């Protein structure tokens, strides 16, 4: 039988929302206080949802220790206590939480093979969150 399993992780990072392709006025109009040149930080909460058959012998979709290890090594160590703008992932895209959510999904999709990656959900604050489930075939 198939079940979905979700695990939550916390990390902190800073970013500045700014696009070089826009004028200074456009950047301020688009990003507001997030355009502050010195950046600002968030405590992000990451929820990773994986799915698969419940293994008859272990009773588990996948071993949580394996998921924790991949998320720790591939996501948390990469982004925790970093300035996102300085990382190569954001050389050509703005480190909005939308884009960070997609970047994390793509990293985990490649790195975690023990179960199917269903969804990455990223909370920037208690008041907003973003979800990405990969590209859909219907587009």
């Amino acid at each position, binding site marked *: 039988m198939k*079940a*979905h399993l979700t695990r*939550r992780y916390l990390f902190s990072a800073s970013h500045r929302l700014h696009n070089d392709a826009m004028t200074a006025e456009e950047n301020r109009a688009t990003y507001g206080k997030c355009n502050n040149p010195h950046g600002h930080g968030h405590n992000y909460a990451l929820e990773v949802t994986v799915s698969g058959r*419940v293994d008859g012998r272990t*009773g*588990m*979709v996948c071993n949580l220790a394996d998921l924790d290890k991949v998320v720790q090594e591939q996501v948390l160590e990469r982004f925790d206590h970093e300035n996102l703008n300085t990382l190569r992932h954001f050389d050509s895209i703005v480190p909005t939480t939308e884009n960070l959510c997609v970047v994390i999904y793509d990293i985990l999709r490649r790195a975690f093979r023990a179960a199917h990656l269903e969804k990455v959900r990223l909370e920037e604050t208690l008041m907003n969150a973003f979800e990405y489930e990969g590209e859909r075939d219907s587009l």
Partner: protein
Amino acid sequence: MVYLTRKAEFSASHYYHSPEFTPEENRRIFGKCNNPHGHGHNYTLEVTVKGDIDKRSGFVVDLKQLKEVMHREVLDAMDHRFLNKEVPEFATRIPTTENLAIAVWQRLEPNLNHAKLHRVRVYETSDLFVDFYGEE
């Protein structure tokens, strides 16, 4: 179609062990969850049902009835229990959160009169939960 979710909490203990594995395999696969004396969690259960809104009552489901079924079928059986020893499903299945979500579904699904069960979500801790949507 409208979806309605009801929450409940219960506390129980469990441990993970399979007789198919050697003691070393059990320790390696299940880690500290393999401690035979068990350990406990405060579980949060979310039961989501779906249905059309009844024109006369304005309800998808009689909430009181849903609450009664959740209490009778799940909480009375599992709250303050050692799942491995006191809940029959776990005499043969390991009481992982995955299997717990499936067992809750199997207990509730035949007992809901009008609404259709959509999802059972079981939080083992605030950082870990399992969703089960029925047989696929």
